[in-house]
């Protein structure tokens, strides 16, 4: 899986490309944890190129959320497709994340 990184203003936009499944989870999680520690945690995850996520990936997202929650922040996801949103709803996890329509909206949430 490829994770591209872009800066929008002072915010890092991480965009994983491809399904978030078990094999890719460790690298993904590590990248996110690194982002939590850098730039005071100003980052968003652009999910627009993720067709689906599996359980280990959800666990990783929960772990990252826990990390962020220590400083009172929430993980900002944006542009997740219907499948991913459904999975989050079904697992009751959607309330743990801040979800935005697109990267612009997510970046603006830091204002």
């Amino acid at each position, binding site marked *: 899986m490829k994770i591209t990184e*872009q*800066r*929008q*203003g*002072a*915010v890092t936009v991480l965009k994983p490309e*491809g*399904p978030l*499944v*078990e094999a890719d989870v460790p690298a993904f999680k590590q990248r996110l944890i690194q982002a939590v*520690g*850098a*730039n*005071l*945690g*100003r980052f968003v995850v652009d999910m627009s190129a993720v*067709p*689906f996520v*599996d*359980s*280990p990936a*959800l*666990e990783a997202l*929960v772990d990252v*959320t*826990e990390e962020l*929650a*220590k*400083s*009172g*922040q929430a993980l900002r996801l944006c542009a997740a497709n219907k499948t991913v949103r459904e*999975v989050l709803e*079904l*697992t*009751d*996890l959607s309330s*743990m994340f801040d979800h935005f*329509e*697109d990267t*612009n*909206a997510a*970046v*603006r949430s*830091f*204002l």
Partner: protein
Amino acid sequence: MINRYRLLIRGESIVASSGIALAAILLAVMAASAAWAMHTQRDAAQAGREAQIRTAAVLLVQSVEPLLSANELSATRRLIADVGRFYGLTQCRVVLADGQVLAAAEPLQINVQNLPARWDRRRTADDSSAPGPGILAVSYPINISGHGSAALEITANLTQPLWRYWEAQAGVCATGAAALLALLIVYRRIRAKLRAIGAIREALQAIESGTSVSAELCVSPALGAEASPWNQLLAEVERLRKQSVGERARETLGRRGQPKGDLSAACDAMSQGLILVDDKSNITYANGAAAAFLQAKRDDMAGKALTEFLKVENLLQAIREISNGSSRRRAVVDVERTDEGNAGVLRFSVRPVRREDSASGMIVIEDITQQRVAEEARHAFVAQATHELRTPLTNIRLYVETAIDEGENDPAMRANCLNVINGETRRLERIVGEMLSVAEIEAGSFKMRQDDVRLETIFEELKNDYGPQAAEKQIKLIFNLPPKLPNVKGDRDKMLLAMHNLIGNALKYTPQAGQVTVNVEVSGKQLSVEVRDTGIGISAEDAEKIFERFYRAKDPRVAKITGTGLGLTLAREVARLHGGDITVESQVNEGSRFTLVLPVVAEAA
């Protein structure tokens, strides 16, 4: 990876290979047995025919002898001919001892018409060449009483082509074919039934080899009845896993909140950092966010002096004054952090907390980096935009004045002035359009029409717009268009705007006597427009940022040229909204290459 999120069609291979192998072996065995049967049958038939011909020859000799003795020549000849025809003999004749042919199945061979009275015994086996394989050649002596000796010579071909014996094998073949057909039908039935099981088997093998149990192992219900319970099973596993993740998440979130009081939990939920200090500037409380902002462990902070974590002198001074009660005024200090990878601007708001017995202070920490960036961008934008708007306005005013003052007497000059005014007005229009579009993007209301866009007219328009501008700057502007351009679906104006920006930029940042090449290619369902220039180039550092709004490269040469820093932002936004993208490759001082890729939906008309 490719197939990962589709229902896999599995189970083809489980019976196919063995079935085909079985059928092939069966066919080979049948063919071999038929060939063998035909071979032995032919041998038996040859032996039978030989015996039959020999018997017939003996009988013929016995019949011919008395007939010839009685000089019944014609009856003899008829008999010989009948026998020859009946047995299908190659040759059947009566030869006198001197070699003359008295009677033969083939009448042309007869070379003596009447039975001679006497003849020599000259001829003794003159052509006794050995017969070939499968040829029977026999000779029986005949004694014609009163005349002399003769011989009955018979030659026959015993062999028959192998295929003559197929009839006996036809039954076997038919039975074999029927059996194969039955096998095929049974195979198809079994295959249909086994497909789901085969697919499930493959899925199980995948699990054994390390694939996690997930939805990607689902089997298409079209494969059979076994598929849907299997899928249910997978879904159940997936559901249980998700449930456990959810429970874990709730548990961990809950655990964090439980032992603390409501107030403490509320403080931890804040994204702002909160620190309470006593009158000696020692920390009495810090929330999680504060620990994160100060890059410290939260549990280490309570009871320690604030100076261990904060080194900014003017801030510490303010905190000291407020916490010991000497100042009642609220203080706000912005601290810019420049650490590698953790840069940002933190705003510390310090307030006194009044208590009767002792003084103390509260510090709220906010991350205002993004606000700062946005603010700077806005400032830059306003400055740039005013500049951008002023240039065409100034030009328009100047040319209007010229037209008024001198145009009355000089129609050529007036036309020229109007032309310039027209061009500048269009430029102004485009700038305002860009600004509006950016505002729309900001507000999330950037919408696209879906027209059939004729690329030919777009490029025609671009050529007309930029031709004179390039000529003025002595830049070679080359359009390499394919002979036939497809139509694309999208918003014509926005697409034009994107290309305007790319080509306009190329001309803008290419010094005199340079070259700008626009290569358009259509491959498959993709249109790529490559704009290559020999301009000032973009540094690697800037290349990442030029698509950010209001960003302008730090190159001092760029600063001299007017621009809003919006063009590329818009161009990329437009490309992405059309399902394409814009990429850039560049070398400082060598030139840049921007590639706009758009999907082609409509076929060429």
